[in-house]
C-alpha cells in the first residue's frame, strides 16, 4: 500500500512549513517512528519521524513551503509499489509539476484537474479513483464522457482516454523571455516569508508617519571616549547603542504613549520599557539577508553598562541561532540603528513599525559636520535620526516631546546618570 505523509500542524497558528532537510534520500528505506525530515516554521526547526515503514518518495524537496495537511511525501510499503509510484510520478512530471518545488505526488489534490463540467449547470460525477489516475497522468477530466451509472467518469473511461494520445494535455512549460538568464531562485520561506508577511502587514495597516532630525552628540562621543579608555576594567567596549537605549527608556518614561502597543480597538500603554534591538543576520547565500529583533527587557531600570552587556548577549545569540522564544517576545518599542550602513556617511531611512508597537527609533552614524552655534560655524559631531510612529495611536505633539527629550539626553549625557 502507498501512504501519504502530510505537513503536520505543529501549533495552532501554523499554516505552512518549509522542508529544511530530508534524512533519507528518494527511494530510501524508512522506518516507522525514526526521524525522517526536518521542517522549518517561522520560528523553529522541528524533526519529524516517519509515520510508516517503507520506501520513500519525496513530493516536496528541500526549501519548498507546503501548507499544513498537504502531502510532502509518499511511503510505499513494498519496493514493487515504490517502482509503480515512481513510474506514475514521472508521467506526471512530464506534464509539468503543478506547484513550484513540488515533485509530483500521486494523490496531491493540487494536481487534480479543474472540476469537470460536461454541461452548463451540471456537475460531472467522477469516481475518486478516476480522478486520481487522471491526475497522475495529467489528463483533463473535462474532455471525458462518463460511462458509469449516472454518467459517472470511472476508471475505465480514464484508461481509455489515456490509450488515445490526442487527449493527453500538452506539457505545461513556464514562459521565459528570450535572453533572460537566471542566477538563482530564493524561496520565500521560513524567516524570509515571516518578514515579508509582517512588513507588508505593517506597511498596509499602520499609519506610518516619519520624522527626521539631527542630535548634537559631541559631548556623548567625548564621554564615551573616557569610558572606552576603561574598556579593560569594564570588560566591554560600551556601544553607542547602549546609550541610545538608555536615553529611549528615560524619554519613554516622560512620554509614555511612545511605549505602547495597538491591538484591535485598544492602545495599551506599558510600564516596562522593553526595547527590541533590530539585528541583522547573515543570509544562507549571497542573495539572502536576515533580521531578528531580540528584546532588551525593562531597560528603564538598567544602567548603560548593564544594557551594553545584555545587547551583546542578545546579538551573539541572534547570530548563532540560540535565541529563545522569551528573547524575542514582549517588545514595546524598537531601536533600529543603521550605524555603519553607509560607511560613515550621513543617512536616514523610513523605518517600518514592528507591530503591534507604534514607535521605531532609528539613529544613524554620528558624523562631524559644520553647524551654526551662536552665529559662528563650528565643527560638531551630529547624529542623523529617523523615526516612524503610528499616527493611529498618537499625534505629533507627544512625538515632538519625545524628540526634545531624547535630543536633550544624548546632547547632555550627564543627564543620563540621573
Amino acid at each position: 500500500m502507498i501512504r501519504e505523509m502530510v505537513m503536520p500542524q505543529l501549533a495552532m497558528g501554523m499554516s505552512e512549513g518549509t522542508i529544511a532537510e530530508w534524512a533519507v534520500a528518494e527511494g530510501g528505506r524508512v522506518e516507522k517512528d525514526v526521524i525522517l525530515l526536518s521542517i522549518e516554521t517561522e520560528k523553529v526547526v522541528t524533526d519529524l519521524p516517519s509515520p510508516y515503514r517503507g520506501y520513500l518518495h519525496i513530493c516536496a524537496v528541500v526549501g519548498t513551503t507546503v501548507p499544513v495537511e498537504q502531502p510532502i511525501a509518499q511511503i510505499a510499503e513494498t519496493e514493487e509499489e515504490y517502482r509503480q509510484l515512481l513510474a506514475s510520478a514521472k508521467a506526471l512530471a512530464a506534464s509539468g509539476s503543478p506547484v513550484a518545488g513540488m515533485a509530483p505526488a500521486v494523490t496531491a489534490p493540487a494536481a487534480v484537474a479543474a472540476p469537470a463540467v460536461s454541461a452548463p449547470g451540471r456537475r460531472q460525477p467522477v469516481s475518486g479513483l478516476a480522478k486520481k489516475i487522471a491526475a497522475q497522468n495529467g489528463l483533463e477530466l473535462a474532455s471525458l464522457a462518463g460511462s458509469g451509472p449516472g454518467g459517472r467518469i470511472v476508471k475505465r473511461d480514464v484508461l481509455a482516454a489515456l490509450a488515445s494520445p490526442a487527449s493527453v494535455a500538452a506539457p505545461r512549460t513556464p514562459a521565459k523571455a528570450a535572453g533572460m538568464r537566471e542566477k538563482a531562485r530564493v524561496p520565500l520561506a521560513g524567516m524570509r516569508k515571516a518578514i515579508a508577511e509582517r512588513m507588508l502587514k505593517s506597511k498596509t495597516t499602520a499609519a506610518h508617519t516619519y520624522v527626521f532630525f539631527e542630535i548634537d552628540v559631541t559631548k556623548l562621543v567625548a564621554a564615551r571616549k573616557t569610558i572606552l579608555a576603561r574598556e579593560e576594567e569594564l570588560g566591554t567596549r560600551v556601544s553607542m547603542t547602549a546609550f541610545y537605549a538608555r536615553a529611549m527608556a528615560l524619554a519613554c518614561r516622560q512620554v509614555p504613549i511612545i511605549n505602547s502597543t495597538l491591538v484591535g480597538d485598544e492602545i495599551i500603554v506599558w510600564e516596562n520599557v522593553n526595547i527590541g534591538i533590530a539585528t541583522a543576520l547573515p543570509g544562507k547565500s549571497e542573495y539572502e539577508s536576515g533580521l531578528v529583533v531580540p528584546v532588551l527587557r525593562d531597560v528603564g531600570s538598567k544602567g548603560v553598562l548593564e544594557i551594553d552587556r545584555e545587547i551583546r548577549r542578545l546579538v551573539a545569540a541572534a547570530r548563532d541561532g540560540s535565541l529563545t522564544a522569551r528573547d524575542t517576545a514582549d517588545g514595546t518599542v524598537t531601536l533600529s540603528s543603521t550605524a555603519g550602513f553607509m560607511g560613515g556617511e550621513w543617512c536616514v531611512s523610513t523605518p517600518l513599525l514592528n507591530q503591534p508597537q507604534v514607535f521605531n527609533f532609528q539613529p544613524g552614524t554620528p558624523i562631524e559636520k559644520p553647524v551654526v552655534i551662536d552665529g559662528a560655524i563650528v565643527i560638531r559631531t551630529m547624529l542623523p535620526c529617523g523615526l516612524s510612529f503610528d499616527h493611529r495611536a498618537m499625534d505629533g505633539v507627544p512625538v515632538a516631546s519625545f524628540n526634545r527629550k531624547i535630543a536633550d539626553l544624548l546632547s547632555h549625557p550627564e543627564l543620563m546618570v540621573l
Partner: protein
Amino acid sequence: MNAKGQDKMSTTREITLGDAMKEALAEEMRRDEDVFLLGISIRAGTFLYTKGLVDEFGGKRVIDAPLAEPGNFGVAYGAAQEGLRPVLDWMYAGFSYFAGSEVFLQSGQYHFLHGSQHPLPLTMIGTCGVGRRVGNEHATLPYGALIHHPGLKVCLPSTPYDAKGLLKSAIRDNNPVFFLWHTSLMATKGHVPLEDYVVPLGVADVKRAGSDVTVLASGLQLHHSLKAAEALKDEISVEVIDPRSFEPFDLDCLLRSVEKTSRLVIVDEDYERAGFAAEVCALMMEKGYDLLDAPVKRVCHPNMPIPGGYIDAYSMPTPDRIEAAIREVCR
C-alpha cells in the same frame, strides 16, 4: 492462512464451532486458575459449549447465575477488578442490554477513568444473529452499539478455527472483550488444530481472494458472501474479507484489498442505521476515497425490529441480496 482458516499446523480435525468454544474455555481454565465461568444455565448448558465443564472444574469455577443480569455483571466486574479473569455468559447477547450502563459505559471505560492503573480482564460471551426465527432481542447483534462505546473490544468468529483462537485471545486480554457468536453457526464444522494457538484481536482474514470487488462480512454473513462469490465466479472475481473483530478493526487489510479491487460491499446483519457498516463507510471516505471507483454499498438488516418467525429470512442479508449488491457496484 488459507480460506478455511488453517495455519501451518498439521494436526487438525473437524469439529463444530460450539466444540471449538468449549475447548477454548476448558484449555484456558486449565492454563490459568483465575479463569472462571458465570452465567445462566451454563452447567446444564443451554448452549452446548459449557455443558459438562462443571464436572472437570467444579461448582466454584462454573457458576450458575440467576436471571438477574446487572447482579451477574456486578459479580464478574468485581472479580475482574480484584484480579480474577471472569467469563460472563449472557446467553443471548441482547440480554446484556439489561445491564446497559454496566456493559456500555462502565466496563470499557473503567481502566481509563482510573488513570490506566487498573486492568479489567473481563470476557463476556453472547450469541446473536438473525435467521433462527427467535425475534428481536434474541437475534439482535450488538456489535455496532458496543464499538460505539470506547474501551470495549468486540469480536465475532465465522469459523470454528477463529472461534477457538479469538475466545482464547479474549480470555488472555487484560481489557473487557465481548465475544459474540452467531447462533446459526453453532453446528458449523471446520478444521481446528490440536495444538495451542490464538487468533489475535484486530487481525482480519481474507477468506476468499479476488480482484474485482471486496466484500466485508462476518459471522453468518461471511458464509452468505462466500456463497454469492461462488455463484458469481464466472463473471466477477470477489474478494471476501472477514474482519473477525470490530474493535480493534483491521482497516489496513481492507484498504489493501480495495486498493486492488476499487469496489466495496459491506454486509452487516445488524440494523443499517449508524452501525458497523456505516462506520466502515466513513473510514473509507476518510482513508480510501481515491481507491474507490464506485460508491460503497451496504447490505444490512433494514431499520426495523428483527421479526420473529419465518419472515426473518426476508429481512436479513441473504446470498441473493449480496449478489445483487455486488453486481450493482460492478456496473
